[in-house]
């Protein structure tokens, strides 16, 4: 065990995978000499050479298209997209190609690429260094979508992603890249996909969150605990595959649900959670399902603190939900 920040844990995960498997390689903008603009790939070029750490031209189309070709051949490329906001030039390769190769070939051509990218607000990044568009990918059949919220999960889920057989979108909450530290197991630490993390047990209401919202939710839950509200916190970890069993079990117990994400509300991932509950936990529900989310505006610069769900917004939703019904 070592105490690491989340971004250091990502770095150790990459290093571990590259040491263990010569087929793993890393490509992206500024990932080599510069070690990544967030230093997630620091030291990799030196240890593994230009052959396995490719500084690419400025083309996300090229990065993902090339990674897809490498994966078809049998390598395990880990592509870095510098910010999730800049992934769209690669969107065609991701949704039309990467997500569909295995299916469209009848299983002849699996295509296992991991796309790592920092996402989310809270770093004063304005419209284009802040967005959370995980719902685009979760809606795309054939992609797995992973979002860690702790250093140990960052390493453990990344290693699972790299050794998985399917395409994985690995979204890193850059806001807590350095602000969150934690013990991270050494070696080939793996955290399985599809198993949510029970952050805190509770009986009155279930709160579902992921990524940088988990610490916000934890603080809010602590705040309302003083008021006698017992909230259960579940960190989803992987949006696809989703741990529906854990979600349903929790709401069957508490009867109430609050969903938190920083992405825009309309058609955001929270809608899917609500829909699952409204369909499969309907008879357990005692109160309306609340969503605490970003707004349906582009992401603002100066007013980002008004956009992002904060402790007080979550706390209010918890209070209202517990008092309703």
């Amino acid at each position, binding site marked *: 065990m070592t105490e690491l920040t989340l971004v250091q844990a990502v770095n150790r995960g990459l290093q571990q995978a590259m040491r263990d498997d010569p087929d793993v390689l890393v490509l992206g903008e500024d990932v080599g000499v510069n070690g990544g603009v967030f230093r997630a790939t620091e030291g990799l070029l030196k240890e593994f050479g230009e052959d396995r750490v490719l500084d690419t031209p400025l083309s996300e189309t090229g990065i993902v298209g090339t990674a897809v*070709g490498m994966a078809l*051949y049998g390598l395990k490329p880990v592509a870095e997209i510098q910010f999730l906001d800049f992934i769209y030039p690669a969107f065609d390769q991701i949704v*039309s*190609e990467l997500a569909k190769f295995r299916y469209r070939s009848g299983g002849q051509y*699996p295509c296992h690429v991991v796309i790592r990218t920092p996402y989310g607000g809270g770093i004063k990044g304005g419209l284009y260094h802040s967005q959370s568009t995980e719902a685009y990918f979760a809606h795309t059949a054939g992609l797995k979508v992973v979002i860690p919220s702790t250093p140990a999960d960052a390493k453990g889920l990344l290693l699972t992603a790299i050794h998985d057989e399917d395409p994985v979108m690995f979204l890193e909450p850059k806001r807590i890249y350095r602000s969150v530290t934690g013990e991270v197991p050494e070696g080939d630490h793996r955290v399985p996909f599809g198993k949510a993390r029970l952050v805190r047990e509770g009986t009155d209401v279930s709160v579902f969150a992921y990524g940088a919202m988990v610490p916000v939710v934890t603080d809010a839950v602590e705040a309302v605990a003083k008021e006698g509200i017992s909230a259960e916190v579940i960190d989803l970890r992987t949006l696809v595959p989703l741990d529906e069993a854990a979600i349903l079990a929790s709401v069957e117990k508490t009867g109430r649900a609050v969903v938190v994400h920083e992405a825009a509300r309309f058609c955001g991932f929270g809608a899917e959670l609500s829909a699952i509950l409204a369909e499969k936990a309907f008879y357990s529900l005692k109160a309306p399902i609340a969503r605490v989310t970003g707004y349906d505006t582009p992401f603002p610069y100066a007013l980002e603190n008004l956009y992002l769900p904060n402790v007080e917004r979550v706390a209010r939703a918890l209070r209202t939900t517990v008092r309703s019904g």
Partner: protein
Amino acid sequence: MSATQAPPALPTAVSPGVAGMTPEDLVRAYRVMLLSRATDDRCLSLQRQGRIGFYVPASGQEAAQVGAASALAPEDWVFPAYRELGVALYRGVGLERLIDQFIGNAGDLLKGRQMPNHYGYRDHRIVVASSPIGTQITQAVGAALAARRRKDSLATITFFGDGATSSNDFHAGLNFAGVYRAPTIFVCQNNQWAISLPREKQTRSRTLAEKAEAYGFPGVVVDGTDVEAVHAAVADARSRAVRGEGPTLIEAQVYRFGPHSTSDDPRRYRTDAEVEHWKASDPVLRLRTRLTSLGALDEARDAALVEEARAAVAKAVSAAEATGPVDPTTFFDDVFAAPTPQLLAERDEFDQLLKDGAVKP
């Protein structure tokens, strides 16, 4: 060049070190080209009769495809668009297997998932095609870099049309190939049209081949109706690639004789006269003439070969049509390596609907 005019005199890219095609090679190519043409003819009529849903003919482009395929080694990887029937046939993909795919039946290795012509066969190192234009181009570069990393001495080749030169992946793919000196051969089959858009409205560059200069590697124009010329250009590009000298762009000038696809009516945008003009350089006829002049073919043998192709197609169609429909229980396979709990739940729902007869294939 206007699509309505004659093709210009083309500098043919034959490089001295590269072995040409023997008469036996040419006969082999000819048989594949005949088979490709016969498949087109038959499938266009199958489509009209509603026996297959859709079809993309390759007629007019056989020499470019077969010429290129004949210059490859079996270990090379092919990243096709959707029109490369000649390549698949040359690499030995069984005709029945292809017709199975056109029908989308139980014999289709792709499990009926794709439209006709969007196939791929791992055993033949043909990567499965998709419809979005150009996406295979960057992928071919990635595979080439992967092969190099594995120290496999081979090239990747990708086929695309004149229209695809405008795609994002053309730009990214050729640029990455230039930067990393990828062992990739880019074959642009310039068939003068992207559906209804003529080549000269696709881009204002003089040739498509010269676009390679923007990425720092050579581009050559070749007469795509001449199987030997294409073979030589691709063989040359391949040896450069495996020698570590980087990529090549080859523009094979051809003409699409038929419609873009069976959904298309080319009379809306081009004249019969233009088609006739180009039919004078029908690649099948050109090779027939060449073989005859080499003494490798006479009329009787030619008729036999034509009939052989026709019969092979008829046989494959019969067999494929006798094959049962695709199995609906495969529906949820291959989304992931193993289905997620969500997919398992959907599959249960689906199975129930099927069992109850609430849904029918």
